[in-house]
């Protein structure tokens, strides 16, 4: 089995799965009917992308496990998503802040992944980037609206960005599997995306009249399966049906 490739795919897919789950939690709880539908749409886009990745991962695994097994039945430390995407929906500013900080990265990442020498990954990237381009537009707009909105919305948006900032650096860290895949021309060298990322983020924050956090203390661990305290609860929700009724289908 191609161990590095398998781990590399999980790293990408788990980001979208976990963020999709977080967005799904807002279904029926969005601040307005229209925003509620929009967040559910983002979630569905991400889950759609995730299926392609996990189907590919299942093929590589080649031991009879399906995309569902991989998505639903791993243990917490086997999920390789970044810490940013598992952060809770504290309020709408947090949800949009998390979305924005991930979307800017996600777009840059897929843009490069399109050039992967792995044709499956490249095809998924080409298919997904239009959706993610819209995600980025949607979340950027909300950052500007809330940041440049009322005194209260500005304060809430700033608090969310300040809190989530500590999880941004991890996006640009590489695991051993990542480095191996970059060497083979399969993976994206995320360290090269960092400057563009912070520049793009700063542009939107400035337009939103928000301060760019100065903190240089960053959290990491997700890419190695070490998660924040929120992850267990998220997985309990995500995995409940499959664990309670094994092999259930719609």
């Amino acid at each position, binding site marked *: 089995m191609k161990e590095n490739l398998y781990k590399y795919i999980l790293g990408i897919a788990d980001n979208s799965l976990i963020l999709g789950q977080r967005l799904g939690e807002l279904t029926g709880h969005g*601040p*307005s*009917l*229209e*925003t509620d*539908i*929009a967040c559910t*749409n983002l979630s569905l886009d991400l889950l759609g992308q995730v299926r392609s990745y996990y189907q590919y991962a299942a093929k590589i695994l080649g031991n009879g496990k399906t995309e569902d097994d991989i998505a639903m039945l791993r243990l917490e430390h086997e999920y390789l998503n970044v810490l940013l995407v598992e952060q809770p929906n504290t*309020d*709408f500013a947090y949800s949009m802040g998390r979305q924005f900080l991930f979307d800017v990265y996600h777009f840059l990442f897929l843009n490069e992944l399109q050039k992967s020498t792995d044709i499956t990954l490249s095809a998924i990237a080409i298919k997904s980037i239009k959706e993610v381009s*819209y995600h980025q*537009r*949607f979340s950027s*707009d909300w950052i500007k*609206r809330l940041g440049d909105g009322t005194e209260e919305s500005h304060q809430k948006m700033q608090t969310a960005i300040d809190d989530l900032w500590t999880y941004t650096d991890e996006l640009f860290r590489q695991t051993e599997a990542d480095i191996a895949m970059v060497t083979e021309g399969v993976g994206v060298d995320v360290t090269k995306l960092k400057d563009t990322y912070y520049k793009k983020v700063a542009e939107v924050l400035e337009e939103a009249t928000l301060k760019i956090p100065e903190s240089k203390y960053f959290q990491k661990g997700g890419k190695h399966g070490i998660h924040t305290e929120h992850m267990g609860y998220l997985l309990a929700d995500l995995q409940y049906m499959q664990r309670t009724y094994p092999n259930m289908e719609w």
Partner: protein
Amino acid sequence: MSTTKNWPLWEVFVRSKNGLEHRHFGSLHAADAEMALENARDVYTRRNEGVSIWVVESKHITASNPEHNGEMFEPAQDKVYRHPTFYELPDEVKYM
């Protein structure tokens, strides 16, 4: 979390295909035109329903008053010459 009660109502018009006209699809709440477009995209055009969206704030639409339906819409029935019913349509002409 604040509600949308302060957001104005917008009417959404979608062109399903190039060459067809925009048709009224429904209405939604949004803070401004840009948000109305995004909301319209998310609410109405996620399944290839359209190629173009118009949004207009509902308050800019002037509507006829149902109380005046009589004078507006019910022409005198005795002036039969107003209705194009005195010629025969060729079979080739459909959908009239």
